[in-house]
């Protein structure tokens, strides 16, 4: 009697838009949004140091760091909803091919820190050992092309590698259960977690050791919108100066980097963050080079590889996809 109607709820709903109207700066301070590529981790350390020390504020920037859940930052930055984002070359180029005007303005690491990780008990020590093993991945043509090239290059039979899509699951658990034998991870985060935090016997094939076969590429990179570069270059420069200062601090004082990151995201595993800070300190910039610099030859080789793997259907002009103009030297 009292309740006549039972209703079900769909997970969707229609938006009745209203204007957002978020005001600009006040007193020379600009509100700036940076969207991360993932949960905060040591790749982002310099940004959190600069934020914690007020270096963005000193540069007239009121920075908000937003964390994504699923989709990356490219579409959001391309649409101008975020001023800056963290992305990676393998999404910047397809995003540009699709017309999103995103530009990489600095790399967080000078080379790709990715690796293929396996339990030591699998006996995998080099790429050709992957033949006959099962790869647990995210699904996509890039990973297929990379693994095939690596195996072939090392004298193995790429046709004997099997692929299974597993998405974002606990890779250690999946390997323990025998659902797959190896995964693609970041050496300075996931491999470190497995080795130093969980204490497992792990073997890993680092991409950077096989650059004779596969291209290097920049991941993660800081991206912005072409319009920002055109209309607010001074802001972009100030942002990158504060960020570069943060990364120089992370290089010199890993414990400062770890503390800044742990303060901003106390949910993170403290041991992993501290180990990773020490791991990354010598790796944020190449010896004797400024932090953030990108090499056009790296982009060119990777762009060709993406086309070969089918992730890019047409050629993308890499000169428009990145710039070093905003790296302080």
């Amino acid at each position, binding site marked *: 009697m*009292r*309740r*006549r*109607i039972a*209703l079900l*709820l*769909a*997970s*969707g*709903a*229609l*938006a*009745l*838009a209203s204007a*957002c109207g*978020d005001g600009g700066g006040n007193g020379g301070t600009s509100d700036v*949004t940076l*969207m991360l590529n*993932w*949960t*905060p981790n040591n790749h982002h350390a310099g940004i959190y140091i600069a934020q914690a020390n007020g270096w963005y504020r000193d540069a007239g920037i009121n920075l*908000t*760091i*937003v*964390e*994504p*859940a*699923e*989709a990356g930052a490219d*579409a*959001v930055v391309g*649409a101008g*909803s*975020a001023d800056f984002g963290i992305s990676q070359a393998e999404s910047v180029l397809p995003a540009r091919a699709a017309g999103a005007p995103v530009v990489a303005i600095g790399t967080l690491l000078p080379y790709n820190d990715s690796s293929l990780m396996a339990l030591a008990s699998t006996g995998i020590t080099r790429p050709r050992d992957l033949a006959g093993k099962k790869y647990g991945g995210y699904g996509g043509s890039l990973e297929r092309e990379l693994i095939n090239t690596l195996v072939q290059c090392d004298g193995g039979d790429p046709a004997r590698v099997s692929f299974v899509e597993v998405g*974002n699951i*606990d890779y*250690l*658990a999946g390997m323990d259960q025998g659902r797959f034998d190896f995964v693609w991870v970041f050496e300075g985060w996931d491999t470190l977690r497995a080795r130093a935090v969980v204490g497992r016997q792990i073997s890993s094939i680092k991409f950077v050791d096989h650059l004779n076969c596969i291209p290097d590429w920049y991941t993660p990179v800081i991206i912005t919108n072409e319009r920002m570069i055109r209309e607010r270059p001074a802001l972009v420069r100030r942002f990158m100066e504060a960020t570069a200062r943060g990364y120089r601090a992370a290089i010199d004082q890993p414990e400062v980097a770890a503390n800044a990151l742990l303060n901003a*995201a*106390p*949910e*993170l*595993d403290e041991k992993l963050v501290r180990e990773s800070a020490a791991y990354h300190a010598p790796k944020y910039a190449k010896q004797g080079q400024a932090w953030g610099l990108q090499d056009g030859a790296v982009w060119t080789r990777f762009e060709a590889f993406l086309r070969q793997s089918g992730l890019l259907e047409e050629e993308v002009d890499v000169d428009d996809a990145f710039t070093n103009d905003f790296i302080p030297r």
Partner: protein
Amino acid sequence: MSAAASTRDSRFAAASRRYLPPALFLAGLAVCWEVAVRSLDVAPWILPAPSAVWAAFTDIGEVLPGHIATTMTEALLGLLIAAVAGASIAALIASMPLARRLTYPLLVLSQNIPLIVLAPLLVVWFGFGIEPKVAVVALIGFFPIVVSTAEGLMRTDPDLVDLVRSTGASRWQMLRAVRIPAAVPAFFAGLQISTTYAVLGAVIGEWVGATSGLGLFITRSQTAFRTDRVFVAVVVIAALSIALFGLVHVIARLVMPWQYASEREQR
């Protein structure tokens, strides 16, 4: 005095009759869960035992209040907008048959757009502040309120409507004197359904991109493969929903005491 004491006793007895069985049932479920996980030796990342969830809660508890404050602000604001918009649209639908025919298909359509389609658009439209989260809660929440309230408005006792009409009342007077009082219980019935989903709606909204909130806490826990913390968030979300539901119930009692008085008499 002894009469008062016995009233209190009988009240206590009534309350325990009412709340003891569900409490015991829940406690029993938790015990079964704990025993099952331990005896079957289930790995913690597949299903953590209640004791492991509790340990995670005491371990990470201090970061929760900030996340809870964010999510609850989004949920409450969204509900408020849903209630106001829902009641207004219901009034329009109930008073104009044409409006009903025009808007009902759109209302149903509005509940069938997947959030994965909507989420990136919400960011573009509203940015990363509280707005997209409030929008998700309001969009999920307004539909039950509209349908329930509109039904209530239209199902008013026809004899009463005829009687008031015979006094020469205008449409607005009819709405105020007859239809709205008759629709209040229906409005609250709809609001209670919306309330059930408000916290979850806010959490889903935070997946769009957030700087704080339980949705962000879940993402951070998932990327660290901390299933125990994910469960902490699930329990917290459930507890907040129950609290919010209770609050709406209390408001309903205060707004329409007659409804609950007549119910008691019927018992």
